[in-house]
């Protein structure tokens, strides 16, 4: 899923549970739960990062902007919201190190968690953008309701 949706989901977990011992591990697990939902993306082997980077850049910028807004809105839970957002979106950092594997659809040399991360993303497709938008609206509505 997009970094924007992972970030918003992390914030929702933090704001609904408000208990770091529960929210922090759940935020990390949520990354893989979200990736199991069919979502926007390019399947491994068809990915050309040089063409894809504009989408990634736009997504990361949106995620960072929304994270900033949420941290201002909920500054009484600043560190919890920040930590949950970081842990929820963070696991995708590994794809930068494994970008060659993604481009060539080659799983050799991947660590165990990344193998699982690859496997759980069973459906990435362009029309998945509709699912991303629906998820974004749902998370946005929850956040506004929690305000």
């Amino acid at each position: 899923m997009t970094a924007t949706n992972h970030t918003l989901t992390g914030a929702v977990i933090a704001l609904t549970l408000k208990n770091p011992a529960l929210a922090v591990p759940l935020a990390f697990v949520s990354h893989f739960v979200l990736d199991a939902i069919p979502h926007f993306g390019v399947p491994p082997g068809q990915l050309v990062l040089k063409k894809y980077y504009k989408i990634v850049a736009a997504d990361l910028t949106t995620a960072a902007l929304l994270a900033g807004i949420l941290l201002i809105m909920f500054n009484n839970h600043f560190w919890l919201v920040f930590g949950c957002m970081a842990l929820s979106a963070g696991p995708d950092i590994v794809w930068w190190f494994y970008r060659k594997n993604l481009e060539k659809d080659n799983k050799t040399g991947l660590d165990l968690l990344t193998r699982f991360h690859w496997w759980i993303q069973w459906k990435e497709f362009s029309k998945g953008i509709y699912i991303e938008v629906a998820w974004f609206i749902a998370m946005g509505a929850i956040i506004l309701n929690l305000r």
Partner: protein
Amino acid sequence: MTATNHAAAGALIALTIKEPGLVLPLAFISHFVMDALPHFGYPGNKGYGEALKHKLTYSVILLDIIGLTILIWFVAGANWLTYAAGITALLPDFAGLYNYFGIERNKNHGRSNSLIAKLHKKYHRRLEWCERPWSLFIEVLLATLLLFLIHYIK
């Protein structure tokens, strides 16, 4: 996914959000999110027709009844929205039951063109990409987590 996990997810949404206009649609959506996770079943995407051929399925149904009983015990005294969300989160599985008992089992192919049957096969069943017997451990883990969170939040 088991009825316990679907209903528990719906109840948890109601207990955390509390706004009916949001809770019920989210509970409905939660069904599909949960079904996208690896869960108990048998490969081949044949639904109940395949699952009911295996003895383990009957043990899982029994476990599910116990799980639902614990869930009802946990949410006892909660407001109507919690129960409504639990039921709403379960609703899409009734399409699966309709598909199996109303069409496949009775070989009533006249109904296989109905909207419910089409939607069920095209979207709901295709979403269940990883139904495996070993995924029972994921179901148990998830049920434990959801029941714990319900107990904690309530």
